């Protein structure tokens, strides 16, 4: 692979490599937290780590930030509607 081709390759593969590293690190954190259960409310930290992983996949692996604004809206729309489903159902279950 000539240095020119290697530079071209790195130019395209930079974001995927970063996303792989981040995801592996976050997964490691969650696995360690899950295995050791350091403190009682650890599920909140684990949920936050999962949220970061989801954002990493969306914005780095799927490169949503370089897509048209319309695509960005559609990628967020699904999560917003899941939020609606969860919050409205919880108003029933948590307040019983």
């Amino acid at each position, binding site marked *: 692979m000539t240095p020119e081709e290697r530079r071209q390759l790195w130019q395209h593969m930079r974001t995927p490599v970063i996303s792989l590293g981040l995801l592996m690190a976050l997964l490691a954190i969650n696995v360690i937290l899950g295995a050791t259960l350091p403190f009682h409310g650890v599920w909140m930290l684990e949920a936050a780590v999962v949220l970061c992983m989801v954002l990493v996949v969306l914005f780095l692996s799927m490169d949503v930030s370089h897509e048209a604004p319309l695509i960005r809206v559609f990628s967020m729309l699904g999560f917003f509607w899941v939020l*609606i*489903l969860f919050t*409205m*159902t919880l*108003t*029933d279950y948590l307040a019983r």
Partner: protein
Amino acid sequence: MSPSDAVMRDPGTARPTIDRPADYLHEEHTLRSWFFSTDHKRIGLLYLASITFFFVLGAIAACLVRLALIVPDGTIFSSDTYNKLFTMHGVIMIWFFLIPSIPATFGNFLLPLMIGAKDVAFPHLNLASFYIFITGALFTLITLVIGGVDTGWTFYAPFSTTFSNTYVIPALIGVIIVGFSSILTGLNFVVTIHKMRCPGMTWFRMPIFVWTLYATSLIFLLATPVITIALILLVMERAFGIGVFDPRLGGDPVLFEHLFWFYSHPAVYIMVLPGMGVITELVAAFSQKKVFGYRFVAYASIALASVTFLVWGHHMFVNGESQLAATVYSLLSFAVAVPSAVKVYNWTATIHKGSIHLDTPMLYAMGYIGLFVLGGLTGLFLATLAIDAHLHDTYFVVAHFHYIMVGGTMLAFLGGLHYWWPKFTGRMYPEAFGRVGAGLIFIGFNVTFFPQFILGYLGMPRRYHVYPPEFQLLNIMSSAGATILAAGYFFPMVYLIWSLWYGKKAPANPWNAKGLEWTTSSPPPTHNFLNTPLVDFEPYGYENKAPEIG
């Protein structure tokens, strides 16, 4: 038939260069060209034929239900048969007629025409959606033939999972599959409206019907998957004992109700929104006047598509729902009535100072406005907590949603069918018969369903095969009305089919209406427009000066 058609059919002779481009109807007549066509117009007509078949099935079930309710002691049918009849009426009418009726038929046919595109974004996906619809329909027909299902269209657990001994699983699979047809149609329309608009067709130059199609497609995408997973869980629980809602294990059947109504209330707006779009088109065209408050009506459609996801709890006020949830859902249900009110007031303002042609479509539109308003406000009654405690699951609810579905969406569908019939088939429907049909349906509908409001307030519960004798008089009135309504439905079918051969040839724009679909020939050429239109004019460009002064 004009000589050029005959020549075309005989493959032997060389094809003559005919003056007008062959329109989509007469271009090819092979079975393959119809059943494997990726032309959005032909797929629209395929949908029209299949939903009409299912409408007839559902209407027969409805007539038998009304027949059974003439006598209070329920001796005409057994209770099981009655339960299977009203379930089949519900399932077929909702998933196989109302939901596909305006989006899949008018939407498929008119969307590319209205935004100046050659076809929808994914024509092959469009054909696949139709065949997924047919597969789902087959499952439902099989369920009907082998013995029917008696759970009601709501399939509430644990009755549907453990206690019903009828064919629940085939019915569930049928509805799951037809759900995918809705999802793919919604996906196709969303992409088409975003990406396939012709040059100059900005969002605020699109007809309101396209706005409502966009809002409906958003609901298709955002709501249908949730009922798909809910029904899959029912199938899993009933077939394999993988119980998620099973109360004997500690599961909560109310959880199924949450998932079910998360879809089913927005599904009500899937059925209502396209109807509103059609009515806006009819009111504008037959008043020869710009839509009043175009932007408000457009934004109201999108507002409906989003707020409708916040109100499903008003179906569950009396099943032990927490008071906080009940109060929040009741308040939001009042808010969801505002966009509908905006539309109704804007229609009225559009008719004001227009130049009104009271043709058949306009009669349907006027009937729609009257009945839809009644339906909508009885919905507000049911959204009030204390009133719903009395009226929940009574005939008041049955009357409410029939006023919306039949008084609203059905009249809009028939109005739209008459309005765009020349564009679909190149033939005019007989005007006098059309008006008689509209009158028949309006009268029959009111005689059928207004007594049910009274029955509901008197306390007659819903889905009752045997009822106290004091309700018999009102039930007989309702059944009598049903016969008029059935005649009213049958009549347009007859004269519309008749008009296919003997109706007058339709000009490109019989109603002097604005809109891209009227700028091309009737029936339109296969690729809709000879050359891609350029839109540099406002929608509904009716002049403000009075055309008929003096």
